[in-house]
């Protein structure tokens, strides 16, 4: 297992919407090893408050040297990160976890909601290069156009067209990504890759189960270490007990998990 703890330089900061930021970090070591679906643990400050690192998906890589994280400001850690300056250094652990498992024989459908879109960009690029014969279908949802637009652009630049859905109808379908997914026939050989809010992933999983699609989901949990040491990051599994999102996941086969759908 090759992982690194590195001081990586921030070489670019992009701000989408008011609370969505993308950082491009310089790290050949992490970048060259990263697989779609893996994540990094980031120190967001230099003091003991906040104390713990924060997990972020690796959202894209380029030139084997740079990788990106894309995040929404939701609390103190992300707010500190959002205030960083280009040229500053961040302490990063990674790449961590088990990413998406890809089989080019299948048809691929990427379903992302909100910041769950982050890892799908990396996956989309990977699939469009590796499985050239069957480019993935992409369905993305977000609150509003402002949030989704730059990400849709990135997919378009990869040559992938996107089915969009927004909560407020400002872009694409006015509603949920599951509505969009329901309206598409993807054939029995479909592999869905899903990342987003838990209820969305649960809904997509049920839909896939119904239709006989395979479904991989990327799970968010509270993580202290990101590397299998604290046992904090559990997700209940179908066969009983728990799996650990940071080392058994974050990407799981949806049918191995226990879904407590209410």
């Amino acid at each position: 297992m090759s992982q690194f703890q590195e001081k990586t330089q921030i070489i670019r900061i992009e701000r989408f919407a008011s609370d969505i930021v993308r950082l491009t970090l310089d790290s050949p070591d992490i970048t060259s090893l990263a697989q779609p679906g893996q994540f990094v643990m980031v120190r967001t400050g230099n003091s003991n408050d906040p104390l713990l690192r924060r997990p972020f998906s690796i959202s894209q890589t380029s030139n084997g040297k740079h990788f990106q994280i894309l995040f929404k400001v939701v609390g103190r850690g992300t707010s500190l990160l959002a205030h960083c300056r280009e040229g500053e250094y961040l302490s990063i652990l990674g790449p961590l976890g088990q990413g998406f498992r890809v089989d080019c024989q299948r048809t691929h459908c990427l379903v992302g909601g909100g910041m769950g879109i982050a890892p799908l960009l990396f996956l989309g690029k990977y699939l469009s290069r590796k499985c050239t014969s069957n480019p993935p279908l992409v369905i993305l949802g977000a609150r509003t156009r402002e949030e989704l637009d730059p990400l849709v652009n990135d997919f378009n630049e990869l040559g992938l067209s996107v089915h969009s859905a927004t909560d407020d109808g400002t872009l694409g379908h006015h509603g949920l990504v599951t509505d969009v997914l329901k309206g598409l026939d993807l054939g029995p050989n479909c592999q869905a890759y899903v990342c987003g809010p838990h209820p969305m992933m649960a809904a997509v999983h049920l839909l896939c189960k119904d239709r006989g699609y395979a479904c991989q989901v990327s799970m968010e949990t509270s993580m202290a270490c990101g590397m299998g040491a604290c046992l904090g990051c559990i997700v209940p599994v179908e066969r009983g007990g728990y799996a650990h999102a940071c080392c058994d996941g974050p990407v799981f086969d949806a049918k191995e998990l226990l879904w407590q759908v209410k």
Partner: protein
Amino acid sequence: MASQVNGVDLRVSIGTLSLRNPVMTASGTFGYAREFMPYVNLHRLGAVVVKGISLEPRSGNPPPRIVETSAGMLNAIGLENVGVERFISDKMASLQGIPVPVFVNILGDTLDEYKEIAARLAGVQGVSGIEVNISCPNVKKGGVAFGTVPEMAAAVTSAVKAESTVPVVVKLSPNVTDISAIARSVEDAGADAVSLINTLIGMAIDSRSRRPRLANVIGGLSGPAIKPVALRMVYQVAQAVSIPVIGIGGIETAEDVVEFMLAGATAVQIGTANFVNPRASEDAVEGLAHYVAEQKLGSVRELIGGLILP
């Protein structure tokens, strides 16, 4: 840097065990050491303590198990572990490859369970020492933690000691009125050393959802927030007993290690800091060597209890 580290005498002893240096890793924060190999040269450490092992496997508490607090964190892992049998069959092989002493942290619900686990571990190759976690509730005594009643703490110590062929360290709970009294009673019962502190019992609530932030409602507080309490307890216990004291609680850096040793610790354990900086333990060893060299001490042992009072 490495050159300065060499030649500095950092050795300390815990019972019959000699450690290369006083920096250990704390139970439950260093996995089975394997996880830290990408970051740490394990042979640079004093010793490794593995996650608590119980007689039967435990799946632990439901999520969420972890919540961050100011300069600390609460955990309610619920002692998830594979049980002593699978520990011996599955985990020991890789632990045997580790070039430093390995302490196995054990826990139980009853005196008999402690005794039984100790018996199973006796003679297992690669087990250099036992650390007894006595912060667990005694189910036969209505859930009162073993570590809060001197007699119960002593009973667990004797039971484990009777079965063990390696040094037995008893890990004390800080959630008590008089930790020195507990320390003395486990010393009398034959403990080769005491380690302290385990986590402080704490709680966190989400004001929006009006729910506890941990599924288990309460959890154990660790990290820099608790360091002042840990340091005070180590200072008190070191004065109360004559066996070695292993200091634990919020240790992040070599300076912290020095502080705990001045307060009376013979060795220390680094816990939560491993999550923030997986190299924390090795960094602390390096920093400690520099400190000892710079302060021109004959050995790191001169620090133990070396606090200068006003």
